[in-house]
């Protein structure tokens, strides 16, 4: 059997992390191809329900990333996001949803290297954890035969 290749979704803001990931590209820094990037205007826009939706859609790991504090293109979107993530993480933990599979990070437009590291370390961590079977099973058992 071939090695488990995690499916990782990254929810990133347009101005910092998306641009940072562009820089990773222009710097030709290699990282795992298991990540799929979804672009948002701001971390403030990222709906927590999309995170559970991603797990339900087969993701094994999720990266949520935006501008460092005080760097937000819209000044404060990331601050609201930070609180929302804290509360969301808390309820996930309490409900037994595996928050080790959700990685939050700040990656600026200048941190191409950091982006590669975040993706690679997440990939390694999720490889260790294995596929997120319990959530995939729960979310598909009534839909897929």
């Amino acid at each position, binding site marked *: 059997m071939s090695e488990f290749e995690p499916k990782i979704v990254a929810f990133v803001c347009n101005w910092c992390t998306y641009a940072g990931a562009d820089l990773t590209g222009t710097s030709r820094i290699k990282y795992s191809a298991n990540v799929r990037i979804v672009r948002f205007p701001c971390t403030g826009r990222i709906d927590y329900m999309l995170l559970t939706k991603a797990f*339900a*859609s087969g993701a094994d790991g999720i990266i949520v990333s935006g501008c460092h504090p005080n760097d937000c293109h819209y000044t404060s979107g990331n601050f609201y996001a930070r609180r929302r993530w804290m509360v969301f993480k808390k309820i996930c933990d309490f409900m037994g949803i595996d928050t080790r599979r959700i990685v939050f990070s700040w990656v600026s437009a200048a941190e191409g290297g950091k982006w590669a590291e975040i993706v690679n370390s997440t990939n390694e961590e999720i490889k260790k954890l294995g596929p997120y079977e319990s959530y995939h099973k729960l*979310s*598909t058992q*009534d*839909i*897929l*035969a």
Partner: protein
Amino acid sequence: MEIINKLIDKSSLSALIERLNTSGKQVYAPVTKNGLCDFAKVESVQEIDFDSIATIQSAKSLVFPKVEKLLSYEKTYDDVIVKEVDLTKIPEVIAFAGRPCDAAGFIPLNAIFTSDSVDQIFKTRLDKLSIISISCKKADDFCFCTSVNGSPSNTSGSDILLTEISETTYYAEIITEKGKAILDAYADLFKDSAVVDKTPFVAKIDKQFSTEIINEKLKTLFESDIWDHQAMRCVGCGACAFVCPACGCFDIQDETKGKDGVRHRCWDSCGFKIFTMHTSGHNPREKQAQRWRQRIFHKFSYQPEQQQEFGCVGCGRCSRACPSDMNIAEHLKAIAVK
């Protein structure tokens, strides 16, 4: 079919349940778990709660589950491949130790699903369901079966009705062919009996009104302010409809995962605002009072008119479940004297 009168020892129930199970039938009976009594799959008689007046939910989920797959499909580049549900996979089920009102509930429910077009999934489930009920020894303030043409020892709807006539014995009425099939299969567990008058062995429930009076009154009450008055404290949830043995409304939901999809049928309630909400935002039943009126009219006017069945068996579940104590019997009584 003429009713066959039998006796069955309490001690034989254990064998009955076991043998039903081994024959491949699924047995559902009232089970109390975490202080909550509901129908659940059982393998032995010890699991069954014979004492509860009524389960929280009715037995309707045995034929009309809270969510059920109607079909599944797969989207291709330019087509959709539909896969029907395999009706042969629907299991044979025994509803055991439910109350006469549970059994009676299948009659209006059946009318909803089969009176004009026949819902094949529902019909197959009901065909494969045998109902062994037990007469009620006790009742509570919410029971009002006698006001809606039922009784604590009513046989309609049941295939077999058991009535406890002594510490050790049930009087068993074999009512239908399905009941007879069970009797025939497990004849060794039953003993012959004469007709027994069940009255001394069952609960007394006073008749508060009649369905005919309600039906008659409703003809003039559509515009009455009684609905506003009664629905004042209604919070607009669906608890009453969902625990009701006779409520058959459902919602159709398509759920997809990528190219695969399934069409689900889930319970719905006329008490919900969204039940009649149009896409435009217009809602013909804008107020909770109108939704409450719909509930009563459906059960006591529309359904009897269209399907010759009243949509209420007097089990009182809705009143017990209501978070704001909307007591249907009390409200019907008020309608009867209006």
